């Protein structure tokens, strides 16, 4: 009897665990897991999930990065700053959206053949309050967290996690929904929010300022809820030179914009704000039949405006823009739909990958006669994102554009840096290999050289084999060659967004 009971119990237990085992492998089970449970579980089998793990500490320092291969060019010195979300969990809660993580700014300081690294979490108001409490206190852009403290404006939610802009001995940590945060450009210590003028206090300042050859900076801040933008003009000395309120700009998610010699171009994509959704992010909806709306203003007279329509689409980023001889405006965009931002980014936070439509380089023309068109879209070397070009060509007809590229089939990220020759259509590449994720690479002109591609591409990559972040220096002219130099940190920092260079 006893034996029977024991045996029956054992059988029951076995049956139960078999069911549980099958259930554990099922989609329903995966959906039931919290973000933290899912990430913990799936990250084990997905090496790429390292890219979405929180930074190992709030402050990181490496006095001398390890040289992996090559040799540092003797004429290269300066600081490469980067920013990206780097803290994804608090009090047992893992955020829902990649863009919600608190920002960490990195400084890779290159001097005398060495590279030192400093990484510091930006001490935003939100970060300080939530660190003290040990839990999330205010809603994140894409994570529905009940407010437990005052939310008095966008800066209550500011995570300062998107890009950087060196300015007058400081580095600004940029977000797009609120103020830029000022950091000491050497220690990266947070100094407070940047207020350009009393009437601009707490206003959004996008993560993609455009800089003219003479140092003049243009930027914008969007209020999608009221269909308006503020345009900033900042003189080379860092002082506000002007601002302009632009109305009737549809509330599509505008992350980046374009600048030619004469014009600023804003594209409101078909990913539009609505009145329903649990989070601000969820209030955006993909509207596949809605045209993209383009608003062009003259830099010399921001009241002079021209409106265009483009076929439905979504892009985070634009390449360079210029006016051709006929006076038409031409630019490139890394265009796709909203699948990645809506679904892909959320899956990443759970350590899961879902296949989404990749961004491809579209060539756009806005004609003087009022018509607009996507002239062609390149689908070579899948994924074209994080576009960069020689800063001296800003607003001019640049021949070369650099992006990341070569997507994995079954994992997020890309292995390569691509060089697009916009004149011939040819793409050359440097591939970091199957166990790397390549991040944005900046073009740095070699001192004393004028050739458009005479310089270096500098960027980070995450090496999944060594589980460490690398800094790579490539020849822009001969991209397919071995890297000029590769350095490695003794740790991995989470994959980030954008960087900037200071000579």
């Amino acid at each position, binding site marked *: 009897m006893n034996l029977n009971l024991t045996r029956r119990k054992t059988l029951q237990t076995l049956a139960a665990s078999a069911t549980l085992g099958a259930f554990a492998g099922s989609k329903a089970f995966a959906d039931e897991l919290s973000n933290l449970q899912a990430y913990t579980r799936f990250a084990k089998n997905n090496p790429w999930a390292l890219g979405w793990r929180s930074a190992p500490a709030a402050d990181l320092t490496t006095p001398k990065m390890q040289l992996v291969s090559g040799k540092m060019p003797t004429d290269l010195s300066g600081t490469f700053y980067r920013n990206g979300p780097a803290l994804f969990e608090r009090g047992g809660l893992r955020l829902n959206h990649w863009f919600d993580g608190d920002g960490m700014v990195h400084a890779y300081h290159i001097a005398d053949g060495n590279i030192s690294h400093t990484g510091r979490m930006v001490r935003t108001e939100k970060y300080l309050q939530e660190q003290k409490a040990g839990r999330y206190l205010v809603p994140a852009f894409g994570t529905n967290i009940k407010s437990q403290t005052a939310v008095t404006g966008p800066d209550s939610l500011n995570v300062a996690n998107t890009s950087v802009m060196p300015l007058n001995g400081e580095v600004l940590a940029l977000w797009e*929904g609120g103020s830029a945060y000022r950091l000491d450009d050497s220690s990266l210590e947070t100094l407070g929010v940047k207020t350009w003028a009393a*009437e601009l*206090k707490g*206003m959004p300042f996008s993560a993609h300022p455009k800089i003219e050859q003479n140092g003049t900076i243009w930027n914008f801040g969007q*209020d999608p*809820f*009221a269909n308006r933008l*503020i345009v900033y003009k900042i003189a080379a000395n860092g002082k506000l030179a002007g601002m302009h309120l632009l109305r009737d700009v549809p509330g599509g998610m505008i992350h980046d914009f374009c600048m030619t010699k004469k014009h600023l171009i804003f594209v409101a994509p078909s990913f539009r704000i609505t009145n329903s959704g649990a989070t601000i992010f969820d209030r955006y909806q993909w509207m596949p039949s809605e045209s993209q709306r383009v608003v062009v203003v003259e830099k010399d007279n921001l009241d002079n405006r021209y409106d265009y329509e483009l076929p439905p689409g979504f892009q985070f980023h634009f390449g360079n823009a210029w006016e051709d001889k006929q006076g038409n405006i031409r630019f490139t965009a890394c265009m796709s739909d909203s699948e990645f931002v809506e679904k892909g980014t959320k899956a990443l936070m759970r350590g899961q990958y879902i296949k989404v439509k990749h961004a491809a380089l579209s060539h756009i023309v806005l004609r003087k006669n009022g018509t607009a068109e996507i002239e062609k879209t390149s689908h070579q070397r899948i994924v074209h994102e994080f576009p960069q070009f020689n800063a001296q060509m800003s607003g001019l007809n640049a021949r070369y554009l650099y992006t990341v590229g070569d997507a994995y089939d079954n994992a997020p990220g890309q292995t390569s840096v691509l060089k697009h020759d916009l004149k011939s259509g040819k793409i050359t590449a440097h591939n970091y290999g199957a166990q790397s994720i390549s991040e944005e690479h900046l073009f740095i002109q070699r001192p004393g050289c004028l050739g458009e591609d005479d310089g270096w591409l500098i960027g980070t990559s995450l090496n999944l084999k060594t589980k460490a972040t690398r800094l790579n220096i490539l020849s822009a002219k001969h991209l397919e060659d071995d890297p000029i130099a590769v350095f490695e940190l003794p740790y991995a920092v989470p994959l980030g967004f954008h960087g900037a260079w200071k000579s």
Partner: protein
Amino acid sequence: MTNYFNKTFLAGTLFAALSVSACASDTAMSATDTRQALSSKTSVSLVVADIKSDTGYIMAALFNSNDTFLGPNPVRGERIAVKDGKASFDFKGLPAGEYAISLFHDVDADGKMAKNAFGIPTEPYGFSNDAPVRFGPPTWEAARFTVSTGTTSQTIRLK
């Protein structure tokens, strides 16, 4: 994102109410004289906390109904001096009932709530009961308190 915050602030008349409260105080005072005679022992003792600077004034508005809350017609409006990071005022001679207070720190002493180019308030403010600010001003329900005979205390922390 921004209008998420200022939709209510702008469309609502909170700051209109606060801005006129200094003027309203003049007219309100004459009415007060009569009421004081009626109920001189009923008052609200207001203390404003978390004031970051001594410049300017605290502009406070007292409301007595949901209909008028945050509108241009508070029952009392008061401009209160700030000293050593503190400000206090007693609203005396009030009829018993339900009340709510909204106030802001008029740091630049221009009599108006400063707002940025998108209409988001940029001077510190607060509400009775320290009613929470979640993307906009609180409801009457969250800010209201009962006043009966004697002194009712309200400490409001600036946000």
